[in-house]
């Protein structure tokens, strides 16, 4: 498999009245063709800002991409002109957002919204675009697509709107689909429908997917590789089975231990991660997780550990070898 996207040292900051928010702090990762990368982390860890930076959708000001490269198809997305970027966005890379209620335009019909990208990027006329839009809506499982295409978003349920969003995302056969918490606003039975749909479409179309979520369960069944983010850093990265079966970073371990699981017997007490995520305006020196970490050593408070390989494809940013409980 070839490299599709290679992000190097991406750094994004927001310049606010209260100070500089260090949202993404020099992260590097890649996505191969046809693979699914899960990005897991809590709110404020920079997972969304990271992909918005790559898509050049960060509002500037207050935001600013202060450094890094994002190589896609031989071009650095952060350097190309806005005109060129528009050729990429929605065409080669498309994005679906968390909230299907607010990311569709309420005053345009579904047809107008789905066919927009088809006419813009693929040069279809209105009739062709309508025909293709109906096919897309059928593909994502919207019943009676041919008649519902003239409806407005408010006439669809949450799950159906998310299907419309996916249809829009797929309309130009993108090589990369970025999904930012697309099932968080949905109920579990509807989430199961959408996950099944995405898996099936991936098999059929073979696109790569970046799936952003805070739900460890969703990524387990979907991703090939996982990046765990904390306070604007990738703190652990690796194949999905390593991350869940052999987690090495104390934060990943803590996160997995703190959620109750349906397939395990009920525990007396959950084991929470004590404390709070750090303030991104004034982050602690050293490892961002150190103040909450049970394995903390002196070095953790002074120096931020780099992301280092511990096993094939499995990288961890931690001074302590948690497995041996020593530095």
């Amino acid at each position: 498999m070839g490299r599709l996207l290679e992000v190097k040292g991406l750094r994004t900051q927001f310049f606010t009245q209260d100070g500089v928010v260090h949202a993404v702090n020099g992260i590097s990762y890649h996505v191969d063709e046809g693979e699914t990368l899960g990005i897991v982390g809590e709110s404020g860890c920079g997972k969304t800002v990271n992909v918005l930076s790559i898509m050049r959708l960060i509002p500037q000001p207050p935001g600013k991409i202060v450094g890094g490269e994002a190589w896609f198809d031989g071009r650095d997305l952060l350097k190309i002109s806005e005109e060129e970027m528009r050729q990429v966005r929605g065409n080669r890379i498309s994005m679906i957002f968390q909230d299907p209620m607010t990311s569709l335009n309420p005053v345009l019909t579904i047809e107008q919204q789905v066919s927009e990208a088809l006419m813009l990027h693929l040069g279809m006329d209105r009739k062709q675009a309508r025909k293709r839009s109906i096919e897309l809506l059928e593909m994502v499982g919207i019943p009676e697509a041919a008649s519902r295409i003239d409806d407005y978003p408010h006439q669809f349920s949450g799950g159906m709107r998310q299907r419309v969003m996916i249809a829009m995302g797929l309309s130009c056969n993108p090589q990369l689909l970025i999904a930012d918490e697309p099932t968080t606003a949905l109920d579990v039975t509807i989430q199961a429908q959408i996950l099944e749909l995405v898996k099936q479409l991936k098999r059929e179309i073979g696109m790569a997917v970046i799936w952003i979520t805070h739900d460890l369960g969703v990524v387990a069944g979907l991703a090939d590789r996982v990046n765990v983010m904390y306070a604007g850093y990738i703190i652990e990265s690796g194949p999905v089975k390593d991350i869940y079966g052999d987690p090495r970073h104390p934060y990943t371990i803590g996160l997995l231990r703190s959620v109750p699981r349906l397939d395990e017997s009920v525990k007396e007490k959950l084991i929470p991660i004590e404390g709070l995520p750090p303030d991104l305006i004034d982050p602690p020196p050293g490892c961002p997780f150190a103040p909450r970490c049970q394995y903390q050593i002196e070095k953790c408070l002074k120096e931020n550990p780099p992301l280092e390989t511990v096993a094939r494809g499995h990288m961890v940013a931690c001074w302590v070898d948690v497995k041996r409980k020593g530095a």
Partner: protein
Amino acid sequence: MTTTTPTSTSKDNILVDVRHLRMWFPINRGIIIQRTVGYVKAVDDISFFVRRGETLGLVGESGCGKSTTGRAILQLYRPTSGEVYFDGQDLCKMKGEDLRRMRRRMQMIFQDPYASLNPRMTVGNIIGEPLEVHGIARGREKRERVQELLRVVGLNPYFVNRYPHEFSGGQRQRIGVARALAVNPDFIVCDEPISALDVSIRAQIINLLEELQEQFGLTYLFIAHDLSVVRHISNRVAVMYLGKIMELTSREELYENPLHPYTQALLSAVPIPDPVVEEKRRRIILEGDVPSPVNPPKGCNFCTRCPVVMEICKNEEPEFKEVQPGHWVACWRVGH
């Protein structure tokens, strides 16, 4: 109605006894002459009880009526019909001062810690307000009680003069818990208390709620849509769908031996954070969406999405039956 509804058999141990509770919201049309053209049947004839000191979990998807049930029990909505016995007295028949006095014994913790605290009040005033309203403590005594409550929920007593915006989501939820505890209630309705919190903070709040239950002998109605969390915290669990309880039984029984097809589908849809397990799992994917509560289907409410639907399901409503001791199910395929 039949006698098989899960009402109390032995009176001693039951704190809250809900019988045939209905909460219909009228839909009105017309500007000057208003007439009711229909009802949103948010809760439609449900019966259950909560034992003293236990946690009853109430799960279901959005719009199934679980929050409405919690609010109707506390009389924040006046139920359309039915009875809610709290310690033997029917709350639905109470009003005015009598009801206000009963409210001291039942409290609520809300979902959104950002919206449920008044941003213009200090933490001290937020937690102290119920103490004053119910005439429990004033002045210095109140201040001391507020500080003690802050300590109990794991916050620094020094925070009394701060405002809600100075706290994180998890800390705010702790303030909400302290406010609920202020009047020494017997019964707390926890309405999705952790849904708005970050994953690493959720376990902190769940543990806090469990510790407080042990310490003060509290009884919880725990409303949530996350089945793994409900399983962790509850003694018994009720599954709601479109305004009705589909299944109600002990936690062990529900998760090991779910009898209602909806419960089975719901459990199979919950993702498990383990790629090895996920690979082998077989999901029951439900078709379509939840029907509108304005016009629920004839017969069983679940019949439009049920993978094992029969002819009778579309015409007649199944009875909510005790099929095994302590295990109630409303399904034509089970025990009919």
